[in-house]
């Protein structure tokens, strides 16, 4: 029954979820019998694009190995005479009583509660919209999708004023609560659930008298896994990289996330009496981006197929 239901679902709709069959299908194209030959020219031209994207990152890695003096004395895309990466990392972690670690922990807190919560709400909501044809469903979709077009930053000032009325500003909640809503995540999960969970399966569970919550947890949740990873990854990026929201909500540097902290260190150079710490700004920038880049590289399979599911339909 299971297999029948699944194939029924894939007959009903394309299932972009499984990247594997797509790849197989592709290599079976007769088009590929006369398989296009690899073109060194095209590779070289596209390679220019690659240089464009990678040079700044290479610059960051190289310059994280320089002392402040070395930054001024050496060529930007090559190493200085003394490579002091380890010293820089130690100084970054130790500067100002280890405030960098505090910022890292804050960022983790905002990501775990904000992005984690946003993913949970998006999964529940997307599943509910895809699987239950209740009255008001269309209205919900229209309102949420319409809200995507409202500039998030335009909402920030009124949100700040509202939060300051109820005393939430300058607390972690001011950053976490607005991060909990991801209209894009809801949209992605709605599309994804419609494709990945066959309604026949839910009907069968209902006939067997299994409760809806139990069905969701035991049957649907595993099917939704690639979509969940995708939404989690993208909400994590949004929260980890968030700058504007914490900028307006937080005054106390003890609650800063990494992004605000970096900006504050950079600003030091032009404040009167402030100490210029460009080498620490650069090293801290490198440390800030490493976890996300690692996550994207390690979870490639999941998010690429999940993203494909969301983008093929509008």
């Amino acid at each position, binding site marked *: 029954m299971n297999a029948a239901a699944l194939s029924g679902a894939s007959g009903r709709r394309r299932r*972009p979820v499984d990247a594997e069959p797509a790849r197989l299908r*592709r290599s079976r*194209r007769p*088009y590929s019998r*006369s398989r*296009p*030959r*690899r*073109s*060194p020219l*095209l*590779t070289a031209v*596209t390679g220019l*694009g690659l240089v*464009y*994207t990678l040079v*700044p*990152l290479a*610059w*960051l890695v190289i*310059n994280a190995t320089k002392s402040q003096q070395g*930054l*001024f004395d050496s060529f930007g895309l090559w190493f200085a005479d003394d490579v002091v990466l380890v010293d820089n990392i130690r100084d970054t972690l130790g500067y100002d009583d280890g405030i960098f670690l505090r910022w890292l922990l804050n960022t983790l807190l905002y990501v775990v509660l904000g992005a984690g919560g946003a993913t949970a709400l998006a999964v*529940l*909501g997307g599943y*509910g919209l895809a*699987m*239950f*044809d*209740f009255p*008001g469903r269309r209205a919900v979709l229209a309102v949420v999708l319409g809200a995507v077009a*409202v*500039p998030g*930053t*335009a909402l920030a*000032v*009124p949100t*700040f004023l509202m939060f300051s009325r109820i005393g939430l500003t300058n607390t972690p909640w001011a950053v976490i609560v*607005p991060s909990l*809503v991801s209209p894009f995540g*809801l949209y992605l999960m709605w599309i994804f659930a419609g494709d990945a969970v066959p309604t026949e399966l839910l009907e069968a569970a209902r006939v067997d008298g299994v409760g*809806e919550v139990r069905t969701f947890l035991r049957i649907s949740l595993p099917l939704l896994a690639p979509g969940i990873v995708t939404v989690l990854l993208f909400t994590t*990026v949004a929260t980890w*990289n968030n*700058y504007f929201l914490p900028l307006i909500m937080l005054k106390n540097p003890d609650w800063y996330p990494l*992004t*605000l902290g*970096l900006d504050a260190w*950079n600003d030091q*150079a032009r404040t009167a009496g402030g100490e210029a710490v460009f080498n620490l700004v650069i090293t801290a*920038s490198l440390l*800030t*981006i490493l976890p996300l*880049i690692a*996550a*994207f*590289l390690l979870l490639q399979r999941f998010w690429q197929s999940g*993203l494909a599911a969301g*983008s093929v339909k*509008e």
Partner: protein
Amino acid sequence: MASDARRRGNWYRRRRLLVGWGFVSPFLAVFALVFLAPIAYALYLSLFRDRLVGGNSFVGLDNYRQAMADPHFWSALGRVSLFLAVQVPVMLALALLAALALDSGRLHGAGFFRIAIFLPYAVPAVVATLMWGFMYGSRFGLVGNLDDALGISLPDPLSPELVLASIGNIVTWEFVGYNMLIIYSALRVVPASLYEAAELDGAGPVRVVTAIKLPAVRGALVVATVFSVIGSFQLFNEPAILQSLAPNAITTYFTPNTYAYSLSFSGRQHNYSAAVAIVMGLVTIVIAYLVQLRGLRTEGSR
């Protein structure tokens, strides 16, 4: 007996209705708190004005009238419109070319290209801006290096004339890979039978691109354009962060959002700031809607 079954059917439908709302309501509750309430509050704020003498009073549409006559607002709007008109087409054209190259099957190491071009998306705007800002700089940046090495003096990317283009470059760098992936995903689901038919008809690679691939990515391009329109009108992070490296080139009213921000937090003109934010929200929605409409109409006329 029959009425019994019907009653059970009703009960069943009601229960499923409750279950459906049960799944959606946690999202909706937070959505109402952080989306709908601020919009309503901003509308409310924009109709009042806080005066030193007389306190808070209802002024109707005065704040909107003030915005329409405010040269700073128009200057900011003009700047992001120019940005939109130049940066978005350039970025999307690059993304489209990269996606077509990836999909052509003619690249060596296509998998590596795909992930490497996408990587900047994972870099926070703060880091991207600082990194490029340092490289633009003449002190220890690449521009300074080139000046020293070649004994020339390149135009300063952080000068008032060039800073918008420099910001455009940063934004392009951040998002070209993301847009490439959206377009590429649309290319991946083109049915193989179309390519087979094209081959039977003896269509060359250029014809395959124009007759099959470009129509296939139109929807994805519309989505990418809509998101880029929203992003352009919201431009804030890059100019705000670059401001510390180019203080003379970036004014407080550089973009509508930096203007709304500085009105609110430096000028304490919350009401006027709310009106500016709402006008920008409306402009964004209208333009995004027009893009969508145009994208769909061209699709329909085929």
